């Protein structure tokens, strides 16, 4: 599968390179960014043509964040990675040493040009009356989320719920754990990725609530019409910071560092920020944030550093084998 992917991507790269562009970039990204990077890539190609007088063609590969990181570790030549969570890029730095471990300090805002959060998507009219996280653990409410073991988005879902419970129960870890356990007992299907979960909820009609990336929820509304679904914004959620990075070893080998750097910088530019906002990611710049302020409801956001002490720690405590998430599914609990 993975080799097939690599083979396919290189094949496509070969043809594309011969066909028109002078430079090619491969952006290895996560599941729900298809629409965002489609727009960014076209805009950046125009921008690069105008400023550097060079034709650039950018291909993007999408999939579960962990799987994508693994492809890069196993040899997929990504010039830039734009993944769902810092932990996956950390792994690329640790395991394959393709970029320095302090990569996250190289770009502004923790190397996250846009942010997002976790919201609820419910069916039209909100028949189960879901308003906040508490409603998700009620009996008879069925919640759809992907598996945190395989999906980056699902980890944000899980941590958002945990953070809410900690806040509600005055930082009582035991009660937070009971809360999240109760929530996952209301989950009938665990898809392996965010897009799969959206499909299960939207097209297969499973579940009452979908825990989703804010951008994914907006996209579902746009694609399927607001007549069928509604977004419910909880009182508290997590500030999701999907980071971006240059893969040093690859760009140096392929001689694409300059254009790759410009590509990531472009995400921080006015146009880049505007595209992010248009695709329902929360822009970082004041200007774009003001422009799209109406679109994004205000809610209390906490960061993973504040509540969990960073990704590495959260990963180890909650999602590693034998971690808290595994215990949720042990029999008799």
């Amino acid at each position, binding site marked *: 599968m993975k080799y097939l992917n690599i083979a396919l991507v290189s094949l496509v790269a070969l043809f594309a390179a011969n066909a028109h562009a002078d430079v090619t970039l491969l952006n290895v990204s996560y599941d729900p960014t298809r629409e965002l990077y489609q727009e960014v890539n076209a805009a950046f190609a125009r921008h690069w043509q105008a400023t550097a007088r060079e034709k650039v063609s950018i291909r993007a590969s999408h999939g579960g964040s*962990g799987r994508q990181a693994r492809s890069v570790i196993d040899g997929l030549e990504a010039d830039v990675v734009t993944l769902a969570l810092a932990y996956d890029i950390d*792994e690329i730095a640790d395991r394959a040493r393709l970029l320095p471990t302090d990569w996250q300090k190289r770009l502004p805002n923790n190397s996250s040009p846009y942010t997002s959060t976790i919201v609820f998507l419910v069916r039209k009219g909100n028949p189960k009356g879901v308003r906040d996280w508490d409603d998700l653990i009620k009996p008879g409410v069925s919640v759809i989320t992907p598996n945190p*073991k*395989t999906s980056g988005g699902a980890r944000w879902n899980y941590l958002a719920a945990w953070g809410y419970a900690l806040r509600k129960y005055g930082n009582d870890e035991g009660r937070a754990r009971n809360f999240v356990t109760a929530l996952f007992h209301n989950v*009938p299907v665990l898809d*392996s990725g965010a897009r799969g979960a959206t499909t299960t909820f939207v097209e*297969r009609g499973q579940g009452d609530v979908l825990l989703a990336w804010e951008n994914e929820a907006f996209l579902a509304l746009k694609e399927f019409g607001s007549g069928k679904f509604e977004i419910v914004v909880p009182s508290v959620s997590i500030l999701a910071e999907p980071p971006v990075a240059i893969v040093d070893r690859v760009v140096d080998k392929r001689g694409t560092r300059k254009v790759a750097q410009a590509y990531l910088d472009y995400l921080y530019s006015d146009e880049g920020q505007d595209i992010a906002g248009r695709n329902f990611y929360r822009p970082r710049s004041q200007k774009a944030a003001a422009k799209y302020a109406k679109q994004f409801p205000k809610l209390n956001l906490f960061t993973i550093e504040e509540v969990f002490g960073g990704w590495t720690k959260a990963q180890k405590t909650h999602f590693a084998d034998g971690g808290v998430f*595994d215990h949720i599914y042990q029999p008799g609990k």
Partner: protein
Amino acid sequence: MPILLRRQSVLPGFDLTLGFTLAYLSLIVLVPLVAIVIKTTALTFPQFWATVTAPRVLASFRLSFGASLIAAALNTVFGLLLAWVLTRYRFPGRRFMDALIDLPFALPTAVAGIALTALYSSNGWIGQMLEPFGVKVAYTPLGVLIALVFIGLPFVVRTVQPVLADLESELEESAATLGASRWQTFYKIILPTLLPALLTGFTLAFARAVGEYGSVIFIAGNMPLVSEITPLIIVTKLEQYDYTGATAVASVMLLASFVLIFAINGLQSWNRKRYTGLG
């Protein structure tokens, strides 16, 4: 070359072909398997044991092997029926039906999974008819079984068909003239002839089902301890960069599959001896 290994044949080239067979098998089959075993040895035995006896992993073994055995058994029964109808009767649309049998071979498994899920989920064509009876198929182990039956169907039909075509109906007629009942004819004449082919079909369908990933993950629901298949556990471990854990589970699966297939093959040769008196 020791004489024992060698059986006289009119055609030359035994050494060459045996050498080629060994080299080819090693390259294609043995080397990848050895790689799995070597990777697993990075774990100490207690670590290995803890990995492969974790409740989720055990539950996945039960589901994967259990559902695969049931699916292969169902396919053997209904595959025989299909093969019988397709070889023994002439009716309009027979060729078309015959071509349909191969579809599960040709279809990308993900397509099969998506199609089956769309059909059997509670708002799908079949799923909504079953819903009033409280039967849920998609996102339950039953869904896994249906996906495995789907992908395993061609194996039994295609192995039984040629044997059935060769089976002369004079044999059945003479059995009837000698006073055998219909059941006796089937049980004593037809079944023994078909048994080797049926067993082969069963083994192939079973082997395919155990390893199946693409079509199952869409319909399984992937709930830990309930509807997680072993290949999914392996992929999950890989996605967490747990390469050794993944290969540990894979090696157990490999061993179990090998033992089962070996046992079925043993059964087959025993059966052959019983009916033909030849080794």
